[in-house]
């Protein structure tokens, strides 16, 4: 179990670094960057469960993300309900939506699932845009409440947010790591590689795809809730948009789909790239930052089609040869 030991060592080092770095570098923007990075790493890991391990690509994870953020934010604004309960409600609703999507389409192969999640996300976005209770297209602003853990509001600095996100990142990574080694983890990969063979071996394909989607939906919703509570403003055009869905896919694919470290590596590359290109070049309003981003995505794909995990493997391989 050398591999397991390596994982725990690397994982601990990363966690300690993430926890200590913001204490050393007292730069608010650095902390913000770290929060976004960890949040999107967690989010992409959640997508990775269904998209990477089980191989069912979804272009509509914004639907779970948006449901999570609305479930935490709307009861908080209207009734002052603690967002922790809202987060759970969001998770449960996301699971129900996952069931509604999964039951009809998991019988199918190929892109039907991808387009279905995408269609559901568009439907839900338009419903929220026209829903009075959540202020339609304007979206919800978090109310100003007493700060603290109960309301999940911190005004003085960003550190508490960072540690909360770090805890969720820790849970998500550990869960994925353990899942890889359980029977279910093997089932997922079998379904991805050879569905017919998996079925012949007695794996209930649609049931396990459904499990993967439900887990993925639950954690995506929780990340959505955290995002809303951190940004303090949510609206259908951001939390339910195709942009969010694609960004999640982008990060995972950049890092390496179905790889444990893929999501973290992908967000380490993409999030700072996006943030800094926006800061340095975004002010012109002419989209130079996005031109650069698009070109870089294309170049990364062409240069290393296996994702950054593939790149690392290549270096490892070369080292092994010498």
């Amino acid at each position, binding site marked *: 179990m050398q591999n397991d030991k390596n994982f725990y060592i690397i994982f601990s080092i990363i966690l300690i670094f993430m926890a200590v770095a913001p204490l050393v570098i007292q730069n608010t923007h650095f902390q913000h960057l770290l929060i976004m990075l960890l949040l999107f790493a967690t989010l992409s890991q959640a997508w990775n469960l269904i998209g990477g391990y089980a191989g069912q690509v979804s272009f509509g994870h914004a639907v779970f993300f948006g449901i999570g953020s609305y479930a935490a934010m709307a009861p908080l604004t209207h009734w002052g309900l603690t967002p922790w309960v809202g987060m759970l409600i969001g998770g449960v609703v996301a699971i129900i939506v996952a069931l509604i999507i999964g039951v009809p*389409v998991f019988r*199918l192969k190929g892109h039907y699932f991808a387009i*279905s999640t*995408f*269609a559901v996300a568009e439907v839900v976005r*338009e419903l929220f845009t026209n829903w009075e209770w959540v202020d339609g297209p304007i979206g919800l602003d978090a109310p100003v409440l007493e700060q603290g853990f109960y309301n999940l509001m911190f005004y003085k600095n960003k550190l508490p947010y960072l540690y909360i996100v770090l805890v969720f990142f820790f849970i998500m990574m550990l869960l994925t790591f353990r899942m890889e080694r359980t029977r279910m983890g093997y089932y997922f990969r079998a379904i991805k590689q050879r569905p017919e063979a998996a079925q012949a071996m007695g794996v209930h394909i649609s049931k396990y795809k459904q499990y993967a989607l439900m887990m993925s939906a639950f954690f995506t919703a929780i990340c959505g809730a955290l995002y809303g509570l951190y940004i303090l403003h949510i609206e259908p055009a951001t939390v339910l948009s195709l942009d969010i869905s694609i960004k999640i896919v982008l990060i995972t*694919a950049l890092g390496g789909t179905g790889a444990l470290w893929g999501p973290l590596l992908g967000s380490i590359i993409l999030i700072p790239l996006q943030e800094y290109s926006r800061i340095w070049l975004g002010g012109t309003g002419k989209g130079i930052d996005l031109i650069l981003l*698009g070109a870089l995505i294309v170049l990364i*794909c062409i240069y290393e089609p296996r994702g950054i995990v593939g790149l690392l493997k290549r270096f490892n391989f070369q080292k092994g040869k010498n």
Partner: protein
Amino acid sequence: MDVTIFLQLVISGLLIGFVFSLIAVGLTLIWGVMDILNFAHGDFLMLAMFSAFLMFANLGVDPVFSLPVIVGLLFFVGLLTFRLVIKPVLGYHALIALLATFGLSIFIRNVVLFFLGPDFRVINQSVLAGKRISFLGLHLSLPQLVSAIGCVLITYVVYLFISKSKFGRALRATALDKDTALLMGINTNRVFALTFGLGAACVGAAGGFLVNFYYVFPEVGLNFAILSFVIVALGGFGNIGGAFLAGILVGLVENIGGFFVGPEFKYTLVFILYLIVISLRPKGLFGW
């Protein structure tokens, strides 16, 4: 319910539906043959529309006459995209190809934004613009009518080409089984390249028609692309006839449903239609 209004709705739905069809046919060709979802499809549409607009604004060439040039141009854009972006990632995870086209989409859209700005532009002095035909209390805008007829004709030509010509047979063989096609002596890479070009040319033709009655701006392709994804899945992947009929269906649902339920829900209805169809016929209306 007034019959004239209903007829008018049906006709408007049909007219825009034919344009959707042609866009979706371009997408379904690429998707069916290469199993690649081309996210830059909408941006190809935008490029076609902008080229038509620029030719009109700078050279005074009417969009009706610039159409062949635009189709050729987009064919070339498709070939170029295949060579530079798609070919290096063929054979890897399908997501990477998708990602590459997504990056390309962001790139194209923002380059156009950078050089031409975000303004909405419209061609209002062309041969067709603003003219309409009225009969029996129904109004048909001439540019839309011409576009619809043109789109149907081109879709039919593409269909004939795919089902009758030698290249079409090679294309279908490659779509069914790439390795076997290769063994039979078909140059699959060439088929891929030409398919990409053909798909882009289809969307180029649609853009060339669309510019006659639709405004142009850098993000114009987005909505059409999203709709055409749904149309392709609705008709069954890689199925040209399916994409054609599904496009008409979506046009009708958008217009008639939008009128009765409210225009803010017109896309919602299209997506709900898709979800209903997919639960009844899991491989799309005409999928096999």
